[in-house]
């Protein structure tokens, strides 16, 4: 028998009192695809960071092709054929694709970079694995999907035999994700072994050979993919049965928010092109699409950070186009931003400070320009209790919250004010099943209460599960709405590809 491509032997890693990995042993056969599952904070990234040499394990050993890997040295891991695509991309936005791929691949003291050769080789690899890129593009100008390709190419360029992908699809839309897995499949055909981390069970089911489940740092189960079901995996992960809540039928009320032929031009580019939609009371309107088609601008528009160049935007019949974020919040608009770290919360601030950030000047939390700290703390404590925000008190630094709990905090502060309109932009990105279920439940509650909700999602499952009606966004334009009952993944996939004038797949 050939040695396993990769063996993790009783890896233990502690951060202070926290045991992030507890004697985890795993192996990966050559050409195998292993999915690593677990709740947020289960220790998946930590384990992979140890494997790649970012961290040093407190105990245990990593072996690649039977040879022990010196700990704490990414260079050694790379030399042994390990490549890693990080959860948070490690790219330099100001540099070109070629620069990002080339770094570290040549002897540092070589007198001149062999850029021409490198470019040829990169284009070769790109063609061979179906990962097209422009070597001279600045990374900051690339879409998320393209950046991911660059990350994978970086690993392949270094001759990776074992590829680790930490939540590679967290930021990809379904078709992109499917293409990625197609590519990965092709790679295993060429002898690569792959470990990927995902919270999306359908992906795990579709793409992996085997599944390993981490819970609170421990390896709790290993299954052949063919021998398990999504439901079992969800239960293994969380330790209890979880299911996403279902949308109950509800008759919508009058329109709350309407956009009529709104165009947004930013930096000379038309980001939104005469889009029209309306969101009604007690209704969720889903906007689906591949990332980079104008979702971000739509999010900014409805958050008060972008202005329409032409067209009308009305909230409860009144013009809302010129309202500032604060004014919107006062008018009962709740906003859940796309990126919780970049926009949703400020990591260095306490939970209570983030809880009132949007409403800092609201009389409930401020008097005569002074912060009403007691009131704010009480509010935060209330959110923590009501929205089941774990591992935090009002004075905890927000940075210390896990992604799911941070999202619950944002959701909580948004929904606590009983908004009449809610913008939910990728509300479950990167969250585990349990957290997703909780977020969905909250959104549906708000809908039940009569809030009008605009859901922007790249997650078809989510959009189909939550939305009453759906529109696709493609190149800044919106398709006509279709009722959820008439939608399925295939139809949505076509819509997202820009094929709008198809007859109903009845």
């Amino acid at each position, binding site marked *: 028998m050939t040695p396993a491509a990769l063996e993790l032997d009783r890896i233990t890693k502690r951060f202070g009192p926290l045991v992030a990995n507890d004697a985890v042993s795993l192996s990966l056969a050559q050409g195998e695809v292993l999915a690593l599952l677990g709740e947020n904070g289960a220790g998946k990234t930590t384990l992979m960071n140890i494997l790649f040499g970012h961290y040093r394990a407190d105990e245990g050993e990593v072996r690649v092709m039977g040879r022990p890997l010196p700990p704490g040295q990414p260079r050694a891991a790379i030399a042994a054929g390990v490549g890693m695509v990080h959860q948070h991309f490690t790219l*330099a936005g100001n540099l070109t694709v070629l620069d990002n791929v080339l770094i570290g691949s040549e002897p540092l003291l070589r*007198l001149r970079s062999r850029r021409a050769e490198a470019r040829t080789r990169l284009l070769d690899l790109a063609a061979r694995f179906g990962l097209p890129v422009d070597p001279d593009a600045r990374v900051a100008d690339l879409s998320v999907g393209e950046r991911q390709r660059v990350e994978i190419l970086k690993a392949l360029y270094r001759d990776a035999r074992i590829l680790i992908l930490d939540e590679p699809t967290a930021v990809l839309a379904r078709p992109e994700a499917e293409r990625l897995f197609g590519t990965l499949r092709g790679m295993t055909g060429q002898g690569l072994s792959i470990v990927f981390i995902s919270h999306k069970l359908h992906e795990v089911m579709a793409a992996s050979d085997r599944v390993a489940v981490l819970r609170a740092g421990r390896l709790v189960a290993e299954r052949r993919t063919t021998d398990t079901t999504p439901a079992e995996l969800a239960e293994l992960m969380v330790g209890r049965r979880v299911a996403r809540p279902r949308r109950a039928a509800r008759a919508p009320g009058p329109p709350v928010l309407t956009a009529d032929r709104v165009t947004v031009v930013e930096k000379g580019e038309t980001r939104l092109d005469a889009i029209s939609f309306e969101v009604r009371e007690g209704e969720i309107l889903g906007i689906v699409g591949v990332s980079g088609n104008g979702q971000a601008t739509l999010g900014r528009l409805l958050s008060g950070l972008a202005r329409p160049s032409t067209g009308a935007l009305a909230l409860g019949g009144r013009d809302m186009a010129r309202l500032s974020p604060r004014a919107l919040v006062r008018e009962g608009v709740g906003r859940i931003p796309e990126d919780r770290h970049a926009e949703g919360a400020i990591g260095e601030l306490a939970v209570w400070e983030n809880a009132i950030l949007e409403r800092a000047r609201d009389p409930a939390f401020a008097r005569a320009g002074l912060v009403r700290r007691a009131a704010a703390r009480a509010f935060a404590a209330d959110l923590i209790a009501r929205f089941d925000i774990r591992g935090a008190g009002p004075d905890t630094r927000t940075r210390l919250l896990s992604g799911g709990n941070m999202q619950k905090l944002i959701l909580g502060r948004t929904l606590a004010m009983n908004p009449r309109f809610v913008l939910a932009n990728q509300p479950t990105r990167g969250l585990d099943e349990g957290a997703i279920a909780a977020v969905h439940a909250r959104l549906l509650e708000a809908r039940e209460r009569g809030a009008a909700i605009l859901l922007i999602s790249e997650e078809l499952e989510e959009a189909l599960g939550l939305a009453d009606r759906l529109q696709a966004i493609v190149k800044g334009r919106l398709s006509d709405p279709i009722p959820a009952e008439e939608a399925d993944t295939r139809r949505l996939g076509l819509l997202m590809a820009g094929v709008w004038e198809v007859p109903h797949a009845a």
Partner: protein
Amino acid sequence: MSDALDLLWTASLWAAVLRIATPLIFGTLGALLCERAGVLNLGIEGIMTMGAMVGWLTVHLGGDLWTGLLAAALAGAALGLLHAALTVPLGLSQHVSGLGITLFGSALAYYLYRLLVEVGDLPPTIEPFQAIRVPVLSDLPFLGPVLFSQAAPTYLALLCAGVLAFVLARTPLGLALRMTGENPHAVEAQGLNPVRLRVGAVVAGSALMGLGGAFLTTAAFNSFFPTMVQGRGWICIALVVFASWRPGRALLGALLFALFDAWQLRLQQAVPGVPYQLFLMAPYLLSILALVLVARRARVPEALMVPYRRGER
């Protein structure tokens, strides 16, 4: 006023521009190298002072001029190592460390100078670098005096600009340094050590700053005086931004600043009666103006001033 403009066409002016620019070129390249790797080095003023003192002292004590420059570079590198040690592995505030190094470097330089050198009526002198006279070329009209009659360190400065531009743009090391200033995590993920790269860049950059200081005492003048660096280091910090962190433009910026300076010295004669402060102010105000004009195109290294701590979130 046409007098004022006529001055711009004199070889005298342009020759002065290169001389005045030389310490600025060294300093700016040094600061640029540090910043490209992500470290702001406000220690420059003290490092240049130390370089000026050590360079001069080495020659005074019997070393030759090039040994003096080497010693100045080493002194700069030593202070750079201190700055790097504080700001890179320890991740301390680059502002505090830098300003602390400026204080420390200057004070130590003055102190050591007092201990080691007997000052009589006038501070002792050394035989400084002389302008090089290239047979035919130095006699060319205009170009001769401007380009072919400078002291050797001026050519070294120009060479450094070219080398640094080349290294940054064309070599694997340059790429690694730039990447370290953009995203040190990306560097680490590719198996390189961003801490070492940053330390190396700061040490090398500080060595260049030391050379800039030494130019003042071994070429522009032949004695050392306390406070003689006169804020040139701060100008270099400004020039780096003006140059959008590019060596080519740093060279240009230093020359431009020197042009303002050389020009105002001549304007003070050509246009008497205007308060001299207005002339002295011109280089600073014009630099701000120039900055406003280039600001939109400037691209700050993303990880500049962001400490890199391994395995921290």
